[in-house]
Each structure stands twice: as structure tokens, then as C-alpha cells.
């Protein structure tokens, strides 16, 4: 048979490529569930890691049963809109760990798109309308008696999306933990946002009331409460992270203020009813 003819070559390559595509599609479909489960587990681990940084006695490593720890510690998980109103509840998996619902990065992207639309909104009416459509995820943990609220953030890095989870104390401002991740930032430079020395530098800082809410900047910021040192050689990734945090914190603010007021009232009430428990 002449294997060098044009017709043969075209037919051969077509059949080969279709065959390969079919195999890949089949494999991708059959492994999809398992892969999504891994991604979900990773998100849960990230959220929990951010919250766990608030307590030095709680640590997470490879051997930790993340799902059990998550269901033990979480006290509420729900969505809020841009006005601070609590919307739907998320399944926390208290009955069955398989039911845990966490927002995927594509969910975060959807919210980010709405936030961008709100930023561009021309008039107050359409802005208010869009604010109501936001579904910002909130995780509330009870870690050894302390309330820790975890808010996600999302932004556009140098090569792809970057996102993270910031754990806030009950005043809705003090950062007690943070963790970030990225799709494909430069290894050794931008990818460092997902590594320990960088995200740990957020602990103990606070979201400020002014503008910007939080800054990721190069320079000495030891004394400043709302600023961390950016990563050398990763200007765009660092800047994108700062923008992402600022933007998201702005829309979480109504909810955070409301819950902080509630927490303060609760604390005052507790102190009034049983003052001896302070000791």
C-alpha cells in the first residue's frame, strides 16, 4: 500500500486525531468527579488553614483529617450580598462530609465579575441592583472559643487568576490568618504568594477604614498595620493581590461591620450576665 499518497496521509491523520480525542474525552469524563473532589478538598484545606492560623495550638499538616476538622470547627457558612444581608446557607457537611459545599474558583470569578460591573455602574439604581445580586461566601469558624470569619478574595495576576482566603477576628478588621493560591504565576517569583513566609506576614495586620483598605507594597512597613511587604521581582502579582483584597474587602465591609457590632454586643451581654467568667 502506498503510505505516502496525499489521500492516505489526510485520512490517516484525521482518523488518528479523532481517535485520540475520543480516548481523551472518555478519560477526562470518567476522572472528572475524582478530580473535582480533590479540588474541593484543596479549597476546604485552604479555608481551614487560613482560619487555623489564628490559634497557635491548631496546626494542619499532611496527616490531618481536614474534612473532620472542618466540620468540627465551622459554625456557619453562608452567602452575603453587597449590603451585608445574609442569603443562602452553604452545606457545612455536619451530617455527611461528602455534602460540604465550598465555592470553587470559578464561583469566585463570577462574583469578581459582578464586583467589576458594580465598580463600572453608571448610576446609583443599577449599582444597588447589582449589589443585591452578589453571593459572597462567608465562613464562620469557632476555633477554641474564638470566632474567626474567613472571606475569600480574587484578582487577576500576571499569568492567570490569583485568589486567597483571609481570616478575620470578631472585630471584622484584624487579620488572624491568610492564605493565597494562583493558577500559574511565575515559579520562584509570583508563585511565592502561595508560600509560607509571605502569607504568614498578613497575620496581625488589619484592614483599615481608609483608602486603600490594605496595601501590598515594596518597602519597610514594619510599623504599619495595614500593609505587607510585596514580593521582589513579582510587582504585578503583588499589585494584583493588593487590588483583589481591596476590592473584595469593600463589598464584605457591610456584612463585617454588622457582624462585628453583633459580636461586640454579644460580648458586652456576656460580660454583664456572668462577670466571673472573665477570669
Amino acid at each position, binding site marked *: 500500500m502506498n503510505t*505516502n499518497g496525499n489521500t492516505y496521509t489526510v485520512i490517516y491523520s484525521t482518523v488518528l486525531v479523532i481517535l485520540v480525542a475520543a480516548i481523551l474525552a472518555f478519560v477526562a469524563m470518567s476522572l472528572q468527579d475524582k478530580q473535582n473532589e480533590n479540588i474541593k478538598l484543596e479549597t476546604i484545606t485552604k479555608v481551614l488553614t487560613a482560619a487555623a492560623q489564628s490559634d497557635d495550638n491548631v496546626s494542619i499538616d499532611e496527616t490531618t483529617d481536614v474534612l473532620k476538622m472542618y466540620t468540627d470547627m465551622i459554625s456557619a457558612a453562608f452567602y452575603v450580598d453587597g449590603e451585608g444581608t445574609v442569603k443562602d446557607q452553604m452545606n457545612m457537611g455536619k451530617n455527611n462530609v461528602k455534602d460540604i459545599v465550598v465555592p470553587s474558583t470559578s464561583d469566585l470569578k463570577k462574583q469578581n465579575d459582578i464586583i467589576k460591573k458594580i465598580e463600572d455602574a453608571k448610576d446609583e439604581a443599577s449599582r444597588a441592583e447589582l449589589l443585591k445580586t452578589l453571593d459572597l461566601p462567608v465562613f464562620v469558624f469557632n476555633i477554641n472559643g474564638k470566632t474567626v470569619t474567613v472571606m475569600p478574595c480574587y484578582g487577576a495576576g500576571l499569568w492567570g487568576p490569583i485568589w486567597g482566603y483571609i481570616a478575620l477576628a470578631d472585630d471584622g478588621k484584624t487579620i488572624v490568618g491568610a492564605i493565597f493560591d494562583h493558577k500559574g504565576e511565575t515559579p520562584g517569583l509570583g508563585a511565592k504568594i502561595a508560600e509560607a513566609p509571605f502569607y504568614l506576614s498578613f497575620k496581625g495586620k488589619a484592614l483599615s477604614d481608609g483608602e486603600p483598605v490594605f496595601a501590598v507594597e515594596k518597602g519597610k512597613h514594619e510599623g504599619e498595620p495595614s500593609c505587607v511587604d510585596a514580593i521582589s521581582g513579582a510587582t504585578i502579582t503583588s499589585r494584583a493581590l493588593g487590588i483583589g483584597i481591596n476590592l473584595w474587602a469593600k463589598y464584605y465591609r457591610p456584612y463585617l461591620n454588622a457582624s462585628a457590632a453583633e459580636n461586640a454586643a454579644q460580648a458586652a451581654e456576656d460580660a454583664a450576665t456572668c462577670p466571673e467568667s472573665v477570669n
Partner: protein
Amino acid sequence: MKDINYKEVLLKPIFKGNPVTVLVLGICSSLAVTVQLKGAFVMALSVIIVTGLSSFVVSILRNSIPNRIRIIVQLVVVALMVILVDQVLKAYAYSISKTLSVYVGLIITNCIVMGRIEAFALGNKPIPSLLDGLANGAGYGLILIVVAFFRELLGSGTLFGFRIIPQSFYDAGYMDNGLVILPPMALILLGLIVWIQRSIQKDLQEK
């Protein structure tokens, strides 16, 4: 067709004709994924599977492949195997697939795979081709594991994540060598392995 010496097909790529130290192929990934033994081990396994299976498949197709699009056909087969391995890793070894990141995908461009297909699989029967692919992958994997062994031991004081250097050493002032973690030291280690091999195997030395 000439008789194939199976012993040589299997053993030559491990030491005498090692694809990394003698042919100096596949250097990029052997520098990038050898920080920890676990990652290196999975990478080695992935490459063994990819080289073996793609040599096997190309060898089955060898008489039907149109000569003009030979490289493209090989590339499609290799890419298929690599994506399969990548998908399986993502489903069953997610954390390792994250540490290996792009390097699993980059097996496609690993010269060892294409090199063996061109040099061996196109002219030999499927079974010898499979063995040749597996052996070359193993030769690559062996170097990867040797380099990773030293890098993890000296750089993190662990092997497969288990602490080897006892805490008392650290208390006495011993410190992990941060340089070993970085890619340049992997290149130096690789150079040392080439040096050792050439001093044992005199016929490799250039006059």
C-alpha cells in the same frame, strides 16, 4: 530482521547508554523536579510509562505511518500518553501533581521520548520497543532518584518526607543546605554523576 539482544535493550539505557548522563537528554525536568524524592519518584514513574507506551504504540503503527507526517503522528501519540498520565495523577495523586505542576505536561517535549521512538520504535517490533522505552525511562528515573536523594537529604534533612537527620544535629548547630534546594546545585550533582560514570567507563571519555 536482525535479532534483538533483550539483555542489552534492557540494561544499556540504565548505565552504559543512560539517556541523562551519556546522551544528556531530559536535563530540564531532572533539575526541576528533584527537590524531593516523592516528586522525583512519581515523575520517574510517569516518564517510564510514557516512554514505554508511546514506543509500543508507535511501533505497532510503524508500517502504516505516512513518512511525511511521521513526527506529527509520534507527537500525537506521546501527547496522548502524557495527558493520560497527567489526568490520572490529578485524580489519584493530586498533591504530587501540584508539586510537579507543568513538568508532567512537559514530558511531551522530553527528548528521550521522541529520541527513542525515532531511533528504535520505528524500526523494531512492538515488544522490544516497549522494553526499550521502559528501560530508557528507567535510566532517566534512576538519575532523577539519585539526584533527588542527595538534594532532599542535604537540603531538607528528610527522605520521602521522613526525618533522617536527627533533631540533635540541628541543636548542635547543623543547618540544612539551602543551595541544594535550588536548581544550580542539581546541575552540579548531575555533573558529578557524569564524572563518576566516565571515570568508571573509560570508553566514554573523549580523547
